[in-house]
C-alpha cells in the first residue's frame, strides 16, 4: 500500500533548504502576500464595497487548507487512510460555538480556534486510541465506523449538537484581543489567514521532527521501525491525535466565520472532501494538499453555481488522478523539476499542445453529455432553458447526442495516441537528462 505514496527524498530536501534559505521561505512569503492582497483585487472601488462572495470563498479556502494539511498528516505522512477526519473538524467547530454561546465568553476571539483545536485533540485522542490499533484497510474501516457513529450521534443528540438545525452563535459575543471589530467579513478573513499560516507552519515544523520522520518510517516499513525500537502504534496514535488538533483549529475557524455549525461539519462528505483535496493535490509533498484545497474549494463554489452535476466532474477528476497520476498535481509539477532546471521545458511544449487538442475535445464532449443528460431529467423539470458555451442544442433530438458521443469517443482514441507519443518524448528526455547528469 505504501506504493501509492511517493517517498520524499529527505536528505536532498534538507540540503536544498540549508543551502538556499530564501528559496525555502519564498513560497510561504508568496502565498502570504497573495492571501493578503486577494480580497482587495475583487473589491468594487466605485462603491467601496468588498466582494462578499469572493472573500467568503477565500476564507473557506483557508480553512480547507488547514483541514487538508491536517488530513495529509495521516494520509501522506503516516500512510493512514482516514474516513472520519471531519469528525474532529466539526467537533472543534461545535466546541467553539458553545464557547461563544456561554456567557461570559472567557476566551478572546483570536484564540478561539486554538480552543477548537484542543477539543479536536481531545476527541482524536479518544478515537485514535481505538483506531490506531490497526493500520491500512482495517484502520480505514474503523475510521469509517467512527465517522458514521459521529454523524448519527450529531443528528440524534439535541443538547450538544442541536440536532438537524445545528448550533447557531454570534462571534461578536467574544472580546477581541486587539480591539478589532469582527462584524466585517474582511476582518474574519484576515483572522483565518493568520490561523492558516500558524497551523501550516506548525504542521510543516512537525514534519521535520523525529515524530514526523518516524511517521514516515512506520508508513514505509513498520516492522523495521519496530525493530529499531519504536512503537509504530504509539507513532500512529500521536500523529492521529495531532492531526485532530489541527483539524479542530480549522473547525474553530469555520464556526467563527459562518456562526453556525450543523451536522454537515462532521458528515461523511466532508471527510471525503479531505481525501479528495489531499489526493488530487498530491499527498507526497507538503504543498500538495494546499493546491488540492484551493482547487476543490474553487470547484465547489464556482462549478456548483454553473452546473448541478459538478460532483460528477470531481468524481471523474479523482478517478483519472487515481489511475493516471497517483502522485497528484504536486507530483506532476515536481516531475518537471529536473527538466526545468536543465532548461529543456521547450522540448515538451509541442507534445503538450498536441495533447491539449484532443484533451479539450474529450472534455467538451463529456461536459455536453453530462449537462444534456442532467438537463433532460432535472433541469427541464425546473423550467430552465438549456445552453452551454453559447450553444443551445435540442436535448430531445438525437443529433446533439450523436455528435457529443462521437466527439468524446474519437477524442479519447486520439488522446491515447498523443499520450503515447508524449511519453516517448518524455522518456527520451529523462534518459537524456540522466545521462547528462554529473556523477
Amino acid at each position, binding site marked *: 500500500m505504501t506504493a501509492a505514496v511517493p517517498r520524499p527524498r529527505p536528505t536532498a530536501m534538507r540540503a536544498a533548504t540549508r543551502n538556499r534559505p530564501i528559496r525555502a521561505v519564498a513560497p510561504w512569503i508568496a502565498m502570504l502576500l497573495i492571501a493578503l492582497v486577494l480580497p482587495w483585487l475583487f473589491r468594487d472601488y466605485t462603491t467601496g464595497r468588498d466582494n462578499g462572495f469572493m472573500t467568503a470563498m477565500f476564507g473557506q479556502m483557508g480553512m480547507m487548507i488547514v483541514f487538508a494539511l491536517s488530513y495529509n498528516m495521516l494520509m501522506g505522512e503516516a500512510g493512514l*487512510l482516514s474516513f472520519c477526519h471531519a469528525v474532529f473538524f466539526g467537533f472543534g467547530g461545535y466546541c467553539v460555538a458553545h464557547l461563544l454561546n456561554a456567557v461570559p465568553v472567557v476566551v478572546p476571539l483570536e484564540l478561539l480556534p486554538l480552543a477548537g483545536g484542543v477539543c479536536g485533540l481531545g476527541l482524536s485522542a479518544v478515537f485514535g486510541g481505538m483506531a490506531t490499533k490497526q493500520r491500512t484497510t482495517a484502520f480505514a*474501516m474503523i475510521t469509517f465506523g467512527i465517522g458514521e457513529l459521529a454523524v448519527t450521534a450529531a443528528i*440524534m443528540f439535541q443538547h450538544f449538537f442541536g440536532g438537524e438545525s445545528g448550533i447557531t452563535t454570534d462571534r461578536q459575543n467574544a472580546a477581541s484581543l486587539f480591539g478589532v471589530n469582527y462584524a466585517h467579513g474582511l476582518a474574519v478573513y484576515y483572522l483565518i489567514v493568520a490561523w492558516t499560516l500558524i497551523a501550516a507552519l506548525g504542521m510543516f515544523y512537525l514534519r521535520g521532527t523525529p515524530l514526523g520522520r518516524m511517521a514516515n518510517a512506520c508508513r514505509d516499513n513498520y516492522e523495521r521501525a519496530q525493530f529499531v525500537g519504536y512503537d509504530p502504534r504509539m507513532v500512529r496514535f500521536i500523529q492521529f491525535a495531532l492531526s485532530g488538533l489541527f483539524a479542530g483549529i480549522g473547525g474553530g475557524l469555520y464556526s467563527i466565520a459562518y456562526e453556525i455549525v450543523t451536522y454537515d461539519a462532521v458528515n461523511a462528505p466532508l471527510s471525503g472532501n479531505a481525501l479528495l483535496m489531499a489526493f488530487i493535490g498530491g499527498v507526497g509533498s507538503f504543498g500538495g494538499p494546499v493546491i488540492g484545497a484551493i482547487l476543490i474549494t474553487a470547484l465547489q463554489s464556482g462549478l456548483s453555481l454553473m452546473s448541478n452535476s459538478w460532483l460528477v466532474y470531481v468524481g471523474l477528476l*479523482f478517478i483519472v488522478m487515481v489511475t493516471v497520476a497517483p502522485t497528484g498535481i504536486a507530483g506532476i509539477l515536481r516531475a518537471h523539476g529536473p527538466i526545468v532546471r536543465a532548461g529543456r521545458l521547450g522540448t515538451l511544449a509541442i507534445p503538450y499542445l498536441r495533447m491539449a487538442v484532443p484533451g479539450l475535445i474529450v472534455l467538451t464532449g463529456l461536459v455536453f453529455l453530462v449537462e444534456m443528460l442532467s438537463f433532460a431529467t432535472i433541469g427541464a423539470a425546473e423550467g430552465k432553458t438549456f445552453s452551454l458555451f453559447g450553444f443551445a442544442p435540442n436535448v430531445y433530438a438525437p443529433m446533439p447526442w450523436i455528435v457529443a458521443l462521437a466527439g468524446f469517443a474519437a477524442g479519447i482514441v486520439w488522446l491515447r495516441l498523443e499520450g503515447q507519443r508524449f511519453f516517448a518524448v518524455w522518456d527520451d528526455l529523462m534518459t537524456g537528462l540522466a545521462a547528462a547528469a554529473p556523477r
Partner: protein
Amino acid sequence: MQLLTDTLLSGLVYGMLLFMLASGLTLIFSMMGVLNFAHASIYMLGAYFAFTISHYIGFWAALVLAPLACGLIGAAIEVWGLRRCHANGHIAELLFTFGLVFIFQRAVMMVWGTLAVPYQVPASLNFPLFQLYGQNFPAYRAFMLLVTALMLLSIWLLLKKTRIGLIIQAALTHPDMVSALGHDVPRVFTIVFAGGCLLAGLAGVIGGNYFSTDSGMADAMGPIVFVVVVFGGLGSLAGCFVASIFMGMVQTAAVMVNGSIASLFAPFGIALGGDSLLGEILTIPLARVSPLLPYVLMVLILFFRPRGLMGARDA
C-alpha cells in the same frame, strides 16, 4: 407475541438482504484486498435497472436482467479500472471505488431524476400470504426470503462443490500459490468481483421495491454493510451470515424497545436525567438510538476482538 414474530420476521428479511450485499463485499475484500466502496452503489443501480426493466418488460425479466447488468458493470470496473490501479497498491484501488460512488450517485440522479421512482412490488406477489396472530404476512416477504435462501444455497454449492469454488477458496488465502499452480488469478478476481456485484444487483432488485428506490439508498445501506462485514469477520462467509442476521434483528428490534438507560435504574428508585448532554444520553429511548447501534457494536467489536465474530485473521 404478535409483535415478537413480526419483529423477528422483518428482521430476518432485512438481515438476509444485508447478507446478499455483505457476502459479495466480504468475498471481494478477503480475496482482492479491495474494500469496494461502490458496492452499495451497485445495489442502488440494481434497483433502478429493475425499475426500468419491469416498466418495459416485467418484474421477472428484471429479476434476471438487472443483476446480470450489474455483474457486467462489476466486471468492467474490475478489468478497466481496478486492474490499472493495482500497481499503485490497495489504497489506490479503494480510492478508485470511492470515486465511483460520486459518479454513480450523480449519474442515477441524472438518468432517473432526484426523486424516488415508483418501483412497486409486482402485482402477482402483492397479496397477503397467510395470517399470523391477526397480522397479514405479505407474499413478497416470503418471496424475498425464498430468493435469499436460494442465493445462499447456490453460493454454498458453488464454493464447496465446484472446481471454480475450490480455486476461489484457495485464492482467498493463498493467491500466490494458486497463481503458481497455473490458475489465472486475475480472471478469478474478475469473476468474484462480477459475482459480488451481481449479488448486490439482485439485492437491489428485490430490496428496491420492499424499501424505496431513491438516490439516497446507497448512502443508507453502504455503512451498514461495512459494519456487517467487519462484525462478521473478514474472509468468513459464515460469520458474515451470522452478523447480517444479527444486525437485521438488532436494527428492527431496537425500534420496538422504548426503554432507556435511565429506565433501567428507575425500579431501584434512582432517577437519572437532567438538562445536559449526559442526561440526554441516559434518558433517550433505545428506539431513537437504533441507527446508532450498528456503529457502536462495530467499534466495540473492533476494540475487543479485531478479527470479528468468525474472522480468520485480524481486520
